[in-house]
């Protein structure tokens, strides 16, 4: 016999947990009490949201579930953002929350929250434990659910009395779920149709999303593209699934995607969409999306087929399985006119930017500097906003699981902790976290964890002293009324009634903040010093923060305004 808490920790180990991210509290203490003897690494975050994003970053970097342990009430509510972030991007996670004893549930007890109620809509599944005997089985099921079908986060809410009760239950050898069978096999007729449609296409485009990376199908995608000479566009989440050094690479499609990718989709007569959701950030005006194309959509989630875009052929199956099976039926092919037309668009509208003021660093140049300093090998983690889009645009992505970013939820504060999780998962990778000055202030406290665990992440803070993406939208669509988006006191609107007599333009001083957290600190203002400083930081092998003061009025282009068709793309 062992306690429920011991059974829980043993089960986590059995399920393959190597790193546990967490933050303690009253209703989780029995579980924490079992950790000193457990054969896994524990990482103490500084805020539960940080713990959740660390586990998320760990999972995105490896494909293995990120595991996180927090207490009841505020501990559980603080992981909510992390769960929603992982859920919409299909990231496998198992999150354990402490809960008040069963007898106190519903009494508004101290630190009681209805965790299963709160997390139901933002998790793939959740469990409320009712007895210590259930714990090993539930843990096994949680890991199974998190990693099978479209991955996602699973919460296990464990009341304190179940942690303390004794149980003889063992970890099951096999997981059996009566109602959940997420593995779908493709219908052979559909595969034949797939091949027929693609073989007869004159202007085909392969359109790869995060599902290609999840399925481990990047190599199969490359083979298919080369065999039949088909250009490849990726979604934001699909960056890294296809090497952008290839002449067939169109880069990212969507609101801030390349002109070539968006126009190719617009003019294509066949789109093979692999592991994508057709999100509104990609389709723009859905009625005018890909008007000439027959769309073949392959996804492991049946609910994503025909959800946003009506498709010619929807195949619910594992992408790698489909591509392997269909490979021999796709004929060797060439599309010289189509490819030349696309190359013409690329020459006409390459991703580019203009220097706005002499001696002021353009933010896009920072991303190019990271590409150079790491020889294109950086494992990039971003926060959310303009810098996120520039990182998507100006780095030549080439490796799956080397571009980690909150795509669906757009969670500011994700970058710093997720980079730490990725760094712990991949100690030999050159992890570079690109983050804005806004997002950096949301979760900077986690830098301490990187320093403590000697995770050599380079945090590059693109400091434009404002919430750049919000500011850009206000400039373009709200008549330049910058309400709430400027971070320096000097530029603020009168609505805040601030005296604008502060000595400092830039608060906080991120180099002082970095030093206070024990990290190496650099600040770059001079464009001539940008490359060297980033190289020094990356090669130092230490946790470092590089604050780069950049042009504050730079915008992300090209841009297709929300809800508009490709034809209304803005270039500057």
């Amino acid at each position: 016999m062992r306690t429920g808490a011991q059974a829980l920790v043993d089960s986590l180990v059995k399920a393959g947990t190597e790193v546990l991210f967490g933050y303690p509290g009253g209703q989780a203490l029995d579980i924490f009490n079992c950790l000193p003897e457990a054969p896994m690494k524990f990482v103490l975050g500084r805020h539960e949201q940080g713990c959740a994003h660390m586990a998320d970053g760990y999972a995105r970097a490896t494909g293995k579930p990120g595991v996180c342990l927090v207490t009841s009430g505020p501990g559980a509510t603080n992981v909510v953002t992390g769960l929603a972030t992982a859920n919409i991007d299909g990231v496998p996670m198992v999150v354990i929350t402490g809960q008040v004893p069963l007898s106190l549930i519903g009494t508004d007890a101290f630190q009681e929250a209805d965790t299963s109620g709160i997390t139901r809509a933002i998790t793939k599944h959740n469990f409320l434990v009712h007895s210590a005997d259930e714990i090993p089985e539930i843990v096994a099921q949680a890991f199974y659910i998190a990693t099978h079908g479209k991955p996602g986060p699973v919460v296990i809410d464990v009341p304190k009395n179940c942690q303390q009760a004794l149980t003889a239950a063992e970890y099951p050898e096999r997981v059996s779920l009566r109602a959940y069978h997420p593995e779908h096999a493709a219908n052979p007729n559909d595969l034949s149709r797939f091949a027929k449609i693609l073989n007869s296409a004159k202007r085909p485009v392969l359109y790869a999303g995060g599902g290609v990376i999840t399925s481990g199908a990047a190599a199969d995608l490359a083979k298919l593209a080369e065999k039949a000479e088909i250009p490849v566009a990726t979604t934001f989440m699909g960056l890294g699934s296809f090497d952008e050094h290839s002449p067939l690479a169109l880069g990212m499609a969507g609101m801030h995607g390349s002109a070539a990718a968006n126009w190719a989709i617009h003019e294509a007569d066949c789109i093979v969409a692999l592991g994508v959701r057709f999100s509104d950030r990609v389709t723009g005006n859905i009625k005018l999306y890909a008007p000439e194309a027959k769309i073949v959509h392959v996804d492991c989630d049946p609910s994503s087929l025909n959800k946003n875009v009506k498709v010619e052929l929807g195949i619910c199956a594992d992408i790698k399985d489909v591509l392997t099976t269909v490979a021999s039926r796709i004929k060797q092919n060439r599309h010289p006119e189509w490819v030349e037309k696309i190359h013409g668009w690329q020459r006409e509208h390459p991703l580019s930017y203009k220097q706005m003021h002499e001696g002021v660093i353009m933010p896009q140049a920072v991303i190019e500097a990271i590409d150079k300093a790491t020889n294109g090998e950086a494992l990039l983690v971003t926060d959310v906003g303009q810098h996120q889009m520039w990182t998507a645009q100006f780095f030549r992505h080439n490796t799956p699981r080397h571009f980690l970013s909150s795509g669906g939820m757009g969670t500011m504060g994700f970058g710093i902790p997720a980079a730490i999780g990725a760094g712990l998962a991949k100690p030999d990778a050159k992890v570079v976290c690109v983050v804005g000055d806004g997002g950096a202030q949301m979760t900077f406290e986690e830098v301490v964890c990187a320093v403590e665990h000697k995770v050599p992440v380079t945090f590059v803070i693109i400091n434009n002293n404002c919430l750049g993406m919000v500011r850009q939208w206000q400039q373009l669509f709200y008549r330049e009324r910058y309400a709430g988006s400027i971070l320096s006191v000097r530029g603020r609107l009168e609505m805040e009634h601030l005296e604008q007599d502060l000595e400092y333009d830039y608060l906080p001083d991120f180099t002082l903040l970095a030093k206070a957290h024990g990290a190496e600190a650099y600040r770059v203002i001079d464009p001539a010093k940008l490359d060297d400083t980033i190289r020094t930081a990356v090669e130092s092998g230490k946790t470092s923060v590089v604050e780069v003061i950049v042009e504050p009025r730079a915008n992300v282009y090209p841009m297709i305004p929300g809800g508009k068709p490709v034809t209304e793309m803005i270039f500057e």
Partner: protein
Amino acid sequence: MKQETYRFNCFVENRPGVLARIVGLISGRGYNIQALNVGPTEDGTVSKMKIDVLCSDESVVEQIKHQLSNQVNVIEVTSRKR
């Protein structure tokens, strides 16, 4: 837009929280439940839910069905026009 009532018959595992999950899934996507009936089946571990929802077209029906089928505790879903 003309809407019609569709009946979704769901066989689900009889566990705490399953009803809340199903109802939340439908309401969370902006659909309005017209009628709801939940009861046991001969197999005590399985419950049957009959859910009537106003849908604008067949693709919405398919979408709801897929979303329901994706749920870990949902054994089978069928639908028909009322």
